[in-house]
Structure formats: structure tokens, C-alpha cells
């Protein structure tokens, strides 16, 4: 019998712990299976590839608590535990399992880095001891457990001081204190945030360079450095919020080696087995450095380092955990060198964070020690300017602009997400680099680079000769940028390039700078040099467009779709080409598609690749709205887009056309209309009754969607609306139950695995609502829903996957909207119903003869999906549920009944009648309660400013809040159904049924 390994995943996506653990976890699980191990996975994040039943032998979407895991251990009897792949969550659980004696009780080995070593890396005191023992300098600091101790330490070393709570994610509860008042607030938050009520206070080393090393170590102590990285933002901004280059750019060889040696010494003395991240601060004016932090596990940085170098850290880490040595594992990219050969780059990499502030206008945009980015993009190029430009192009967002110099300066003095763009703007307006350096401490090397980017803009404004444009391309000036600085439309630049034969070259990532022959499929574009690859030789070649960075409303679930689509296409005999730019994901693992282009998802990049590869078909429905939005343009350039033509998508997405369509087939929709101007909106509002639901066009995740209760609110909303968001949809706001349908259609028939019902009423964004699948819906209603769904899909001869949202109000069923693409809930439905939805969708898109099973799947349990909010880092925002999506991730639990599944969602919370739980509607004296140590749950659903303030205060204190009646009711109702049932997902139906 093969050995069984229990793997703990990282759970729902939150800021600080995101899709990178899907990538690492998937790689790790596959590596274990490759070695013949049986893998039992516990991870309650349904949106990932990692929880796909094909990745592990048993997948438990169950709570990540030691009680829950102990039950699973009893059921599965694993031989060992691998905790290094599931981020801080898994590491903390491993420490707890050990502490509670559970690992000993069930005689389980720990694979990889030992618990002892984990604690040495994580526990501040033990860590300092290791640093002292190995002569590694650390910043003067002290472990603090009381406010008084904090005050006296700060008095001793002087402000500013940095606070870092122990055992927390993404710097949760931490920050910089510039004075006594700051300190008091930080201590309160920090001590609360730390599960062991411990905060480390340290001397501020703001202005130092921040450098990271990704190190691998095997059981025999062989250590290598896979990659080093330099943060462009000096120490003070969390590395997850920093713009980062790989390799370091401003370090001499002596500095590079000094820190490398230090990193290796530390990792060796911690006896890490697997991957480890070491962060340093380096004085820009001397050789003085400090070790900031060690993460004895794979991390966001290791995912980035893997993608930056091509060296698969998580995969190798899993194998090292099994006992392999670095000099016996082959480097899969070269197939010649061993895993002990340190990667070397012959290109530059820029990582750029993706922040949620485009959605959260009220959030505090200042960056510090607490991470705020939801995701990131990466760019590969051979000049730094071009790498920056590509990274910006990959962000897929409206870039910040500044009305006045002072506005720009605001983002510079206290760094915000807009700092980079503010710097560019100041340089554009002639501010000196010295002045910017003084304010930011950003190394002049980088400022020079930014300045050259501006020089190109200026030069191109007056000179668009072929020679100049060609040169500008070397430095990354995209067609969009050319259009912006010259005023000549982007399409004309595309034809200008075609006329003058200005096309990018494609080079490969091979870990060895070309020293050895490598058969890699990992490609980037550049104008610096020649193309070194041939288009893939293939009978049928498909291009799959990815979803870009993780952001609110477009998360890891879209990566799931893209990856499953690639698998399906490969099975159907297609050669697959993937374009994406998110370093955290499985889709950008070079082993996923037959060829990976790590590129921005701008039309320019997509079309250049499509032309080079001469692809037969392009898939735009598996990369969220980002991919769907380019459908029409791709079609206009003569490529075949899989599924339905852009005209059909337009009919389904354009509100006016869609309402016409629904009327023509007798499917009811909410009363409402399209408004092309503020004037039209006012007129429309007059013809309906408040409340109204107002949504702008071309947005993701309900951005800017508001419920309007009065004329005053309407005016305020119109004020906020940018011109490009017209037309607005103005709908009657009707309350009722929201039902979602995921369907696959071959044009003539549709397959609906079941209905998903929201717990909260319509009006709460579907991404933020809890939902039940399969839902128990009155037969009459469900029949009507399915009939409407079928009518819509077959009417437009829809091929592929589609999501439809319905509103049920009494006996009436209305269509709310259609998403003619793979949606957020596809992985949940697919996994719960054990139906390969994406696979069937792909088949329906490429194969005329594809049919679906007539019977509904038998689903042996009920799943509840619940949203997860990153309030730990965005506590200043009122998390009252509404039309604008705020959650960063989602989780899922299974139960024999809906109540049992719901009970798991709330099982970590106290009973509603417990003093730890405060109900604004019946309990009194909120302020006193808030300061009580046990305060855990707060319920207040009022719309008032006072309610908002209280919710925010509660959130800041780390309390779970309920802002919606239905959610709160579900919590209360679930209490009597608490259970210890731990259920593994059933394996999926293997193939589509072909007749």
C-alpha cells in the first residue's frame, strides 16, 4: 500500500494569501502523486485547481481547524503531514497539531521542514536566537505584550517604530508608529491580531533597500539560491505591495554574494527542507544589512521566483520533503542540469501589485507594513523600461492620473498605490530626480529608468519616424502608449507596425541564460533580439486567453476555468497556447499549456502572438471579463473565436439588446432601461419607484453598482459616474430570492446540473452572498427557471458555458443578467455535482456532435459557498453587504443537509446567546462589549452612519460582523446543526457522453 500524505491547503483567498498557494499546492500535490504517494487534501477553497479531485486522491473542503483535521486524520489514517505548501494557515495548523499532540497520537511524520524549524523561523524570540547564534544582524527590537512595555521601548530607541504582530498573515494588525498616539492604536490592533497576543516592535530602517532571496535546502544541507529580488520601494512598504525586480538591479556582486551567503547560512541553520524565503534590508550607503524576516515555506515570493526563473520551487520542495537531494533531481526545464544548478536570468522581471482601490474609493490607500494588494502581475523583458511598461499594461485597470502637481506629491510623501504613476507624472512635468529621490528613497538607478520612459514619450510626441518607433519598441512603448502620446489611434499603430514590419521577437525562459540547450515552452516577447522559436507544429492549435491579476470580482476561479479548458482541449487533440501575466497561478505554470506566453493581455500582445502562432481558434470565455472583452476585436482580425460570435455576446451583455432579446422570447426581466446620459437617468428614475438599482457598463464585480433610494442619492451617484461608464442600467429594485444557473449548451440543448440559491436577498452582490447548491427550489419555480435558461441559450444558438442570474419574487421569475462566459461559481458547481462543466463546454464549442447526459447528476450532499472578506487589511471600509462586491475569496463546505453545511461555515463562532456575540437589535452597551476580550461576533444591519461606524470599529477589533438579516439568521439557525461530519468530494464523471 502506498504511503498516504495529508496536505493542508491555504483556504480562501484573502489579501496576503492568494492564488500563489493554488499554484504551489497543485505543483506539490502532483509531485507527491508522481512519486506514488496517496494524497489527502484539506482545503476549503473550492475555486482552485488544487481542490480539483484530479489533483489529490481525496479532497476535503472542510474547516481548517485542528478539530476538523483530527477527524479527517481519524477517517483517512495518513502516514504523514505536508504543511509547507499551504501558506501561513497550514504552517500555523501544523504547529497547533503538534502542540495538541495530534501528530504523535496518530503517529504521523512531518514531511519537509520540521515543526521545530518552523517555530524557529516564525517565533520572534527563537528567530532572534538563531540570528544571534549565526552572527546575522537583526534590527533592534523587542517582543511586547503590553502597551506600557511598548511605550518604554519606543522611548528607548526612538520613533518611528514598526509593529509586527506574531503569527499573522500579510502583516495583519501591523504598521508604523511615528508618535505615542500611533503606538497606542497599533498596540491595541496588534495584540488582538496576534493569536498569541504578541507584537514585535522594532527600530525603523526606512530607506534601506529591501532584498529577498528564495533558497532551497535538502535534507543533507545542500543549499542553493533560486533567485534574488529587489523591491523598488525601500523598506517600509510590505513586499507584497512593492514593485519588485528580479534579479536585484542595484547590488554589486559583493553585496549580492554577502546577502546570498547570509540567506544560505540562515536556511541551513534552521534546517529547512524545501523552500525558504529570506528578506533583508540593506543600507544604500554601506555594507550594513539586517535580516528582516524568514518564511520557512513556499510563499508568494517563491511563486514569483518560480515564474521569474522557470525553476519550479514548490514541485522541488515537495520532492525534497520526500527525501530527495538537490543533486539527484533533474531541472525539468533543461533536462540536462540538476536542481542544484542555480538559475541565472538573461532578461529582467518586474512584478507589479494589483490593488483593490479602484473598487474601494473609501479605503485608506497608504501603503505600509500591512499588505493591501489582492494580486499581482509579472512582466519579462530585456530592458527594464520595457518590463515596466509590460507590467503596467498587464494591470488591466484605469491608471491613476493627477490633476495637479500637489495631487501627485500626496501619493509620494506617504506612499500609496499611485506612487509609481505619480513619480512618472512628476518626471513628465519636469520635477528633478533628486527631489523625488529625497522624498521616496527610491534608488536613482530606478528613477533614471522611469525618466527614460518619459523621455521616450516626449520624443515620440514629435518624432514618429520608423527608426524612432522601432527603437521605442525596445523600451516597451506599446501601441496604446503610442496612441496616447501621439493622438493617433491605436489601430493605426498596429497597421503602421505591419507596414514597416515592426513585430516582436519571442525568446524563451530556460533557467540557464542559454548556456545549455533547453526544450522549454515558456516564452516572452521582446524587441531586443531575434525570435528563437518556431510556431508550434500542430494540426489544431488553440489560443486560450487568461484572466490576468487577481482582483475583487475576478479571482482564482477564472484560472481554474482556463486550466480546465486547456486540459480539455489537449484531450481533444488540440495544441494549446496560453497567454497570461499572473505569476501566482496554475495557468502560468509552463507545464500547463503546450506553450505559455507570459504577456500582457492587451490586444496588441494577443494579436501578435495569434499571428506568430497562426492559431486556428481563440478561447475568450475562460478568462473572465478580461478575456471576454477582447472577443470582438479578435474576431475582427479574422480569427475564429470559439463558441458564439461577438455579436451574440453583445446581445447578451448589452442591456438594451438583451432586454429586447428577452422580450422577443417571452422571458421576463426586471423593469428597467438603459440611460445614455445623466439626463436620461433622471428621466428614467422619474418613471419608476425608488429604490432603483443603478449599474454602470463595462465593469467587473459590480463595481459602481448602487441601490438608490432617493433623488438625492441619484444625483450623488451620477456625480461619481465617469463618461465611459455610460450607458447606465436603471432597474427597478425588486427584492426576492436570487437563483443562479451554470449551464453548458451545444446550441440545441442545455445541461443544467442544478440551481444555486443565495442566502441573502437579491441586491447583495452574488460574489458576496452565501449560496446553496443544489438548492431546494419549488418545482414550479425551478421548472420555469430551467425553461427560461434553455430558451435564452437555444435562442442565440449558444455554444459553451453560461451563467444566468434570476430573481424570484413570490411566484414570479425574472432574469437579472447573463454572463456568456465561465463564471465565479463554475468550480463549485463542477466539483459538487462531479460534472466536468468546462470540459463539456469546450467540447460543445469545438464538436458539433457533442451531447449531454439526459439525467441530472446525483449529488450526495449539499454545498454551501460563503464569501471571505479581507477586513483584516481593509478594516476602515464598511463591509455592509450590498451591490458592490467586496469579498476577496470564497470557501465551501459540504453537509448532508443545507443546515449541516451552513453550520460548518459558522462553527468557529460562539453561540448567538453567548456574551461574545453582540446583537445590535437586542444587546446594549456596544462600547463596553467591544473592549471585552471575548468579543467575537457583531450583528448590525442598519444603514445609518452610526451603524457604519460601529461595524468599522468592530472590524478593526478583528470581530466577525453580520450586516445582513439573512446571513445572521443562517448563523443563528445553524447552531443546532453543528456536526463533525467530514466529507470528501466525490470523483467526477470522467467523460462527456457522446452519442
Amino acid at each position, binding site marked *: 500500500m502506498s504511503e498516504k500524505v495529508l496536505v493542508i491547503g491555504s483556504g480562501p483567498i484573502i489579501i496576503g494569501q492568494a492564488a500563489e498557494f493554488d499554484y504551489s499546492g497543485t505543483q506539490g500535490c502532483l509531485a507527491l502523486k508522481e512519486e506514488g504517494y496517496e494524497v489527502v487534501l484539506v482545503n476549503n477553497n473550492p475555486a482552485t485547481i488544487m481542490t480539483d479531485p484530479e489533483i489529490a486522491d481525496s479532497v476535503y473542503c472542510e474547516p481548517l481547524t485542528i478539530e476538523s483535521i483530527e477527524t479527517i486524520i481519524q477517517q483517512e489514517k495518513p502516514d504523514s503531514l505536508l504543511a509547507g505548501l499551504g501558506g501561513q494557515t497550514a504552517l500555523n495548523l501544523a504547529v497547533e497539531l503538534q502542540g495538541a499532540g495530534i501528530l504523535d497520537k496518530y503517529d504521523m511524520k512531518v514531511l519537509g521542514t520540521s515543526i521545530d524549524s518552523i517555530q524557529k523561523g516564525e517565533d520572534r524570540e527563537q528567530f532572534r536566537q538563531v540570528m544571534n547564534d549565526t552572527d546575522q544582524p537583526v534590527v533592534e527590537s523587542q517582543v511586547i505584550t503590553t502597551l506600557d512595555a511598548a511605550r518604554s521601548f519606543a522611548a528607548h530607541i526612538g520613533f518611528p517604530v514598526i509593529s509586527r504582530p506574531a503569527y499573522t498573515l500579510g502583516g495583519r494588525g501591523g504598521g508604523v508608529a511615528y508618535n505615542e498616539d500611533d503606538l497606542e492604536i497599533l498596540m491595541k490592533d496588534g495584540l488582538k491580531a496576534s493569536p498569541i497576543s504578541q507584537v514585535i516592535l522594532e527600530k525603523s530602517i526606512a530607506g534601506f533597500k529591501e532584498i529577498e532571496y528564495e533558497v532551497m535546502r535538502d535534507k543533507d544541507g*545542500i543549499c542553493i*539560491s533560486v533567485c534574488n529580488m529587489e523591491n523598488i520601494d525601500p523598506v517600509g512598504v510590505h513586499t507584497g505591495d512593492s514593485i519588485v525586480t528580479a534579479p536585484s538591479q542595484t547590488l554589486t556582486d559583493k553585496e549580492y554574494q554577502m546577502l*546570498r551567503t547570509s540567506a544560505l547560512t540562515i536556511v541551513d541553520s534552521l534546517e529547512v527542507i524545501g523552500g525558504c524565503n529570506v528578506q533583508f534590508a540593506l543600507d544604500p550607503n554601506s555594507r550594513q544589512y539586517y535580516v528582516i524576516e524568514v518564511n520557512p515555506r513556499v510563499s508568494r515570493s517563491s511563486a514569483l521566483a518560480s515564474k521569474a526563473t522557470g525553476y519550479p520551487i514548490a514541485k522541488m520542495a515537495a520532492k525534497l520533503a520526500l527525501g530527495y537531494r538537490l543533486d539527484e533531481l533533474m531541472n525539468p526545464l533543461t533536462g540536462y542540469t540538476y536542481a542544484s544548478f542555480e538559475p*541565472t536570468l*538573461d532578461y529582467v522581471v518586474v512584478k507589479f501589485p494589483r490593488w483593490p482601490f479602484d473598487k474601494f474609493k473609501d479605503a485608506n490607500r497608504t501603503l505600509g507594513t500591512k499588505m493591501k494588494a489582492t494580486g499581482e502581475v509579472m512582466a519579462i523583458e530585456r*530592458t527594464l523600461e520595457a518590463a515596466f511598461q509590460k507590467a503596467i499594461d498587464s494591470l488591466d485597470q484605469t491608471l491613476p492620473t493627477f490633476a495637479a502637481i500637489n495631487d501627485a506629491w500626496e501619493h509620494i510623501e506617504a506612499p500609496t498605490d499611485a506612487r509609481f504613476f505619480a513619480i512618472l507624472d512628476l518626471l513628465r512635468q519636469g520635477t528633478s530626480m533628486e527631489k523625488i529621490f529625497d522624498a521616496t528613497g527610491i534608488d536613482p*538607478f530606478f528613477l*533614471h529608468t522611469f525618466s527614460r520612459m518619459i523621455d521616450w514619450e516626449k520624443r515620440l510626441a514629435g518624432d514618429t519616424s520608423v527608426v524612432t518607433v522601432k527603437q521605442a519598441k525596445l523600451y516597451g512603448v506599446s501601441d496604446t502608449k503610442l496612441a496616447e502620446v501621439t493622438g493617433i489611434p491605436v489601430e493605426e499603430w498596429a497597421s503602421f507596425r505591419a507596414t514597416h514590419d515592426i513585430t516582436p521577437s519571442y525568446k524563451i525562459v530556460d533557467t540557464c541564460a542559454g548556456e545549455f540547450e533547453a526544450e522549454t515552452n515558456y516564452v516572452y516577447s521582446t524587441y531586443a533580439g531575434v525570435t528563437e522559436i518556431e510556431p508550434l507544429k500542430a494540426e489544431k492549435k488553440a489560443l486560450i486567453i487568461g484572466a490576468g491579476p487577481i482582483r475583487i470580482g475576478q479571482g482564482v476561479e477564472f484560472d481554474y476555468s482556463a486550466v480546465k479548458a486547456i486540459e480539455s482541449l489537449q484531450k481533444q487533440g488540440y495544441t494549446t497556447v496560453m497567454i497570461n501575466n499572473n505569476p501566482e497561478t496554475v495557468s502560468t505554470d509552463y507545464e500547463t499549456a503546450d506553450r505559455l506566453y507570459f504577456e500582457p493581455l492587451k490586444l496588441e500582445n494577443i494579436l501578435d502572438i495569434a499571428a506568430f502562432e497562426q492559431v486556428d481558434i481563440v478561447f475568450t470565455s475562460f478568462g473572465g471579463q478580461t478575456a471576454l472583452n477582447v472577443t470582438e476585436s479578435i474576431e475582427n482580425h479574422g480569427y475564429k473565436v470559439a463558441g458564439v460570435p461577438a455579436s451574440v455576446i453583445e446581445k447578451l451583455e448589452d442591456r438594451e439588446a438583451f432586454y429586447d432579446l428577452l422580450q422577443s422570447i417571452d422571458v421576463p426581466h426586471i423593469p428597467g432601461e438603459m440611460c445614455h446620459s445623466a439626463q436620461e437617468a433622471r428621466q428614467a428614475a422619474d418613471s419608476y419607484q425608488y429604490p432603483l438599482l443603478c449599474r454602470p457598463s463595462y465593469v467587473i464585480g459590480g463595481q459602481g453598482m448602487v441601490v438608490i433610494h432617493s433623488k438625492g442619492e441619484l444625483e450623488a451617484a451620477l456625480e461619481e459616474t465617469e463618461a465611459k461608464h455610460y450607458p447606465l442600467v436603471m432597474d427597478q429594485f425588486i427584492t426576492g430570492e436570487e437563483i443562479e444557473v451554470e449551464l453548458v449548451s451545444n446550441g440545441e440543448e442545455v445541461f443544467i446540473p442544478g440551481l444555486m440559491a443565495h442566502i441573502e436577498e437579491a441586491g447583495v452582490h452574488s460574489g458576496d452572498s452565501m449560496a446553496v447548491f443544489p438548492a431546494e427550489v419549488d418545482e414550479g419555480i425551478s421548472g420555469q427557471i430551467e425553461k427560461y435558461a434553455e430558451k435564452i441559450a437555444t435562442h442565440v444558438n449558444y455554444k459553451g458555458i453560461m451563467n444566468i442570474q434570476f430573481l424570484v419574487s413570490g411566484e414570479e421569475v425574472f432574469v437579472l443578467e447573463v454572463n456568456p462566459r465561465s463564471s465565479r461559481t463554475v468550480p463549485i458547481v463542477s466539483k459538487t455535482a462531479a460534472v466536468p462543466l468546462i470540459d463539456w463546454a469546450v467540447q460543445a464549442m469545438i464538436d458539433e456532435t457533442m451531447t449531454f447526459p439526459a439525467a441530472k447528476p446525483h449529488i450526495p450532499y449539499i454545498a454551501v459557498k460563503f464569501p471571505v472578506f479581507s477586513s483584516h487589511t481593509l478594516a476602515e471600509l464598511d463591509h455592509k453587504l450590498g451591490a458592490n462586491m467586496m469579498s476577496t475569496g470564497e470557501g465551501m463546505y459540504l453537509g448532508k443537509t443545507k443546515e449541516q453545511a451552513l453550520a460548518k461555515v459558522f462553527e468557529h463562532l460562539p453561540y448567538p446567546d453567548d456574551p461574545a456575540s453582540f446583537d445590535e437589535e437586542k444587546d446594549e452597551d456596544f462600547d463596553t462589549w467591544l473592549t471585552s476580550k471575548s468579543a467575537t461576533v457583531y450583528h448590525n444591519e442598519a444603514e445609518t452612519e452610526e451603524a457604519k461606524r460601529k461595524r468599522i470599529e468592530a472590524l478593526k477589533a478583528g470581530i466577525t460582523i453580520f450586516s445582513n438579516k439573512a446571513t445572521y439568521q443562517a448563523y443563528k439557525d445553524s447552531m443546532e446543526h453543528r456536526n463533525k461530519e467530514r466529507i470528501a468530494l466525490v470523483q467526477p464523471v470522467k467523460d462527456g457522453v457522446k452519442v
Partner: protein
Amino acid sequence: MKGVIQLEDGQFFEGHASGEWASPVEGEVVFYTGMTGYQEVLTDPSYRGQIVVFTYPLIGNYGVSDSGSESEKPQVKGAIMWQCSDEDSHYQADQSLAAYMEEMDIPYLTNIDTREITKAIRTKGTCRASIANTPSAPAPLEAAGQVFEVSKETIEVHGDGGTHLVLIDFGWKQSILDKLLAGGAKVTTVPFRSIADIHGMKPDGIVLSNGPGDPKDVTGHLGELKALLDEYPAFGICYGHQVISLAYGADTEKLPFGHRGANHPVKDLKDGHVFITSQNHNYVVTGESLEDTPLEARLVHVNDGSVEGVVHKEKPIFSAQFHPEANPGPEDAEWMIDEFFTMVQKVGVTTYV
């Protein structure tokens, strides 16, 4: 201005020239894959006469420092880069790389697809190349005897430590001397043509330095060298390692394209440990040639299994094909220098007490 590098087989690559040259600049073309350390590479005597291609595209980011060189001046014949910076922002920088290259009159090309040249070299093997303003075929003649150009004429004494070491000069790097001085030695550098003089110095140990080109260039000195090695503890680095091997009857051969870079894993057969090394060599001691000698391979390259260091079966002599003194490259092999000091001290004790 246009610049071209042309390889022996006629392939050429166009870019920008750093100047206008009356006649082509010729040399053996090699590539360096390290991402930092350009100043050390340019001034390392082991690169004497070679044209170095830097695979990392951004060269010169942190400028050039007066104290950062491995010898007084650049040793390379020319350099090929994608980008050569004319700015510097590092606190230790005294000038930009572009300014330094101009001052030192080292021809270089930029805007060259360095990855393509690297691939050409890895496919065809190390070859001759010419840098010029128009394509120009390099003379087919192999350069030889570079070691005679870099070894100094005079004997020099450095430091005043308690352990007296002789560094035999085949073109030593500053870092080797620095590391020996840091270890507490007084170091006398002796040109390899003056080996006979060493006996009179009664050193505690001998270090054979790195150097450029073919170790068989010094075949004429192997006899007197062996006599010296038989008597003193010795440590050979790179060229020095090859010369020790030759002196005891082993053979060397030329690798198809050499080992160069800062990322080469080497395994110590004594304890199985693997560490990353900095390398720069075209020639290698062949494994089978060690068979009938008193030497055995102690260190081997993880990727290709080639000999990376030997140890004498009876005498206190060992060697490294790579650069334990680093600069550029990782410091993982510095223990070898410590081990040499320990060995020297041990021998000292047994001899004189």
C-alpha cells in the same frame, strides 16, 4: 556607429560600436552568465585576451569602483553586451561602466542579441571572433601563451602575517591575495618563471594561482614545480589546479565551451556535500588521466561529472578548478581556503616540533 562581431564560422551579429577601429579586435569569444560582477570579470587575468559576452542584458547598473578590480586594468580584449550603462548610482561607484571602458580603451559592442551569440558558442564550441565596424573574419590562429602576458616580472611581498605563503603567479586575482591576507598570511607573489627561487624562501605553503589559457603553455616548468610540490603543502586554484595535475602526470583537454558563470554546482566526494561555485575555465583535467597518478578526484561537477578538484593521496596538496575566493560569484567554497590554512598549520606542527 555600427559594430559587428563575427565568429570563426562566419556568423555575425550587429550592434552599436563603442568606437571606430582601424583594425578588427580579435580574440577567443566566451560568455559569462553571472548577473553581477562585470567589473571583476573584465579585470580578471584569466580572461586575458578574450572577448566576453555578458548574457545578462543590463550591464553597468552599479558603476565601477576604484577598489573593485581583480587586477590593475581590464584584461579582456573586448566585451559584448545588450546594454552598457553610462550612469551610476551606487555609493561605491567612482565612474560609470561606459566611462571606464572608454578610459581604459576597451572596445565593446552594445545592442547585440547576446543570447544568440551564447547559443552559437554553445553549439559550435568556443571559437575566435573579431569585433569591427564592418564584418571581418577573425584570423584562424589560436592564441597561445596568454599566461606569459599576465604573470608579473617581479617578486613582491604583501602583508606581514605569521604564515608565510607563496602565491605562484600565473595571473593572480586580487581576491586570492585578499583572502590569503585576511587569513593571516604574509604572501610572496612569485612569477611562475622564478619557481626555483621559492626553495630559498622556505614558505609554509604554496598557492598556485588562476591564469589564462592552456595550462600546457607552462609545460617547461612542470619539473621544477613538481620538486616544489613534493616539499610544501600546496593549494591550486583553477589554472593552478590544472598545473598541479599536469605536474603529477595527469592530462588536460579543452572543453567544448568551457564553464563560466556563478552558478555551477560541485560535489565533494569526501562527504557528498554540494555547493555552488564561481567558474571560468576552458581547460579541464580529464578524469581517466588521474588513474596512474598519486592524485585522485575529490570534487566533481554535478551537471557533467568533470573533475573540479584533486587531492594528493599522500601529500598535503589539493586543488579547485573553480574560484573559492569568489569575486565574482558565490562564497560557498571559501571553506577550502580555511582548509588550506589548517593544513599548512598542521604540517608546520609535524615538521618543526
